[in-house]
């Protein structure tokens, strides 16, 4: 069967007239139908392509940081000596990070009292404190066993080398890095994801913490925590 005949069969199946004799009254009508079909195909191509681009963007991860393998002593976060400590860095206005907080909430539900969690909301130096108090802040603060912090000028984020909103790190009770990355499957999309699953496993399974080498890493989907010139520990970011 040739490609043309296949095409015609498909149109016939869908009852779409292609030429005179197939339902169209005359040649001009057939011509018009043909033009319409071509236009429809172009439209289909454009919209499908745009949709795919959109999907591709949604699945494009942000810049992944490289947190220290040992809990940084200069951090203001009190590390729990009995349980793993989770630290998440969030841009308070990043729409994608709502999904990260949502996933954190789910994780905390599964891992009640087995984990100590802290969420740092970035506060650029030039911004007032209220700038931080967003819906994401309130949602995070509402999660049991989660402590929210205002990360003044991104100090803590820089200590943990976090680059993208939603970046999450997990250290064991001894201060060894177990996991770092995102806990969503794509930008702003909630749902089962490898990051949350890994964290859940590491927290609930002590043996997994001990045998886990190397450190688990997942992509992070979210806004950049810092402006481009401030990234990588640039001095400018300490504004």
């Amino acid at each position: 069967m040739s490609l043309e005949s296949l095409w015609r069969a498909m149109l016939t199946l869908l009852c779409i007239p292609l030429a005179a004799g197939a339902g169209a009254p005359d040649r001009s009508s057939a011509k018009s139908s043909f033009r319409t079909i071509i236009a429809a195909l172009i439209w289909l191509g454009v919209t499908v392509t745009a949709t795919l681009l959109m999907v591709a963007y949604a699945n494009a991860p942000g810049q992944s940081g490289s947190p220290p393998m040992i809990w940084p002593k200069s951090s203001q976060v009190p590390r729990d000596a009995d349980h793993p400590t989770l630290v998440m860095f969030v841009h308070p206005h990043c729409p994608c990070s709502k999904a990260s907080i949502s996933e954190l909430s789910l994780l905390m539900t599964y891992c009640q009292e087995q984990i100590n969690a802290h969420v740092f909301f970035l506060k650029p130096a030039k911004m007032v404190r209220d700038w931080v108090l967003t819906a994401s802040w309130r949602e995070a603060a509402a999660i049991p066993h989660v402590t929210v912090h205002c990360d003044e000028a991104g100090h803590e984020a820089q200590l943990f080398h976090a680059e993208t909103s939603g970046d999450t790190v997990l250290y064991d009770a001894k201060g060894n890095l177990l996991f770092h990355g995102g806990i969503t499957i794509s930008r702003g999309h909630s749902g089962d994801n490898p990051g949350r699953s890994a964290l859940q496993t590491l927290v609930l399974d002590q043996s997994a913490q001990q045998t886990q080498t190397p450190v688990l890493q997942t992509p992070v989907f979210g806004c950049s925590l810092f402006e481009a010139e401030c990234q990588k520990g640039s001095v400018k970011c300490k504004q």
Partner: protein
Amino acid sequence: MQTVAAYAALNDVATKRAAMLFEQGQDCIYRRTDRFFARLMVFQWLAGIAAALWISPKTWAGASSQTHWHVWAAIFLGGAIASFPAFLVWKQPGRALTRHTIAVAQMLASALLIHLTGGRIETHFHVFGSLAFLAFYRDWRVLISATIIVAADHFVRGIYWPQSVYGVLTVSPWRWFEHAGWVLFEDTFLFISIRQSLRDMLEVAARRANLEEVNADIERQVGERTAELANSLSVLHATLESTADGILVVDYQGRITNFNRKFAEMWRLPQEVLASGDDQQALMAVLAQLKDEETFLRKVKQLYALPEAESYDTVEFKDGRVFERYSQPQRIAGKSAGRVWCFRDVTERKRAEAELENVHKQLVDTSRQAGMAEVATGVLHNVGNVLNSVNVSTTLVSENLKRSKAGNLARVAAMFREHAADLGAFLTADPKGKQLPAYLGQLADHLTREQSALLKESNLLKKNIEHIKDIVAMQQSYAKVSGVTEVVNVSDLVEDSLRMNAGALTRHGVQVIRKFDPHLPEITVEKHKVLQILVNLIRNAKYACAESGRTDMEMTVRVTNGDDRMRIAVVDNGVGIPAENLARIFNHGFTTRKDGHGFGLHSGALAAKEMGGALCVHSDGPGHGAMFTLELPIQPPEGRAPAQARQSASETHGFRQDAVQHRA
């Protein structure tokens, strides 16, 4: 099977009509659903933009922000998804490509909305809701298009971004089929629903086609009945308006339901009274015109109280007009629904009737007088004819008496007295005396002959006088039944007739020729009538001969017998009769003679008809003489009463025709 059954009852025309109705119904649904989706597309586009602005208006980098990609995607991609289907709905509503495009666009819109809402499970219901919406088209193929888009989306994502759709990084290559399967699961129910809907539509189309056919038939019948009704109404209206009667129809609620102009004219009703349609008003308006209002009103009330009653009476007006009033119930389906009043202006008729009665009285008087005159004319004519013969006879008797030798007998007697003394010597010696015995013998002979002639004439005179008596008696019989018949010998009757005219015939030198059949039977007739006819015919023949100026005037009387009828023909070689006169020769008053009355042939023909016979005439024209034939039955017709005969005789016109035709 329902559909098949519904269509099986249809004829070819209805089946085609049902198919057309079904297609029209489908097209209507397609267009309506197109419009619905066009609006939905616009709504979804705006909703997508709103969702993007609400959920992810900006993307951030530190303190810097810019419009989120989702916003642009919602505006431009959402706009692109919605605009082309909306354009097709505007330009090509109802077409297959339009709804397939809508199906594809709807699934793309689902993908966009799911994406804009952060992949929320709840937004995925948009896919299934959209499939249900697409089922509004009642075209299962549209669901196929939508399903293909869903399956393709999952297939492509499964390959390139499995975590974005399945939540895991690695997935079976057939996982997309599971998701598409759930869509197909819904499709299956929608297919069944669509199939049932299409069946219902077919059923409705078949019923509607059938109904239309029935309606068309009913409308045709209604049209025919309406035309017939219109025709009947026009005939009724024309009849109402063309009749000389005034007609009013009133129902039992006292409303005037119909009337004609004649009614309004006759009753001189004001237009406003008629326009009110109130019978009571009309009644009050006419009462003042009537002589007897109370009787009129009482009659009307009486009739309204008796719906089934019919009536007839007359209504008299103060101005002298008289109306006949007929009234009968108006029935609908056998039930009395009102009353029809019919008025006829009979004023002129009543007047004419009065005049007619007056004239009739006068006519009766005049007729009586005219009848008497006719009788007198008949008597005079017939008696006159006979009197001619009487006159001739008396003249002959007188002349014979003048020439009589009876005077000579007196002289002989004087001679005997003179010679009484010597009578012997005188007879023997005297020369005169010696001649006397011989003279006396001669005188005796002469007187004997003279006596014989006088006796003959006196007998003829006697017969004529008897004839006059008969004529008078016959004329009297017009006033009473007579019809006395006699058995007579026709030859004798003919001879009597000839004898009555013998003098005239002799004087005019008309030679009479007799041609009688040798064995003529006797006939039963009214003798005097036959005699009267024959005398007339012979007399007319004599006149015709005399007027011709011929020297060989002759009249032949021929008596023949055959077919139980006797025919007596009087043939002359006189002046003859023009053809134009033949047809009216028996008419009363028709005559060609200066001193004629036009009565003899007329009465003769009547008399012949009365006796069951006929009188006919034939002539080859002027100068060729004429033949009159009296035809008589040997026996008078059975059951022919004299009264009837008289009645027939009075029908003179019919008789003349018969007579002429018979002669021809």
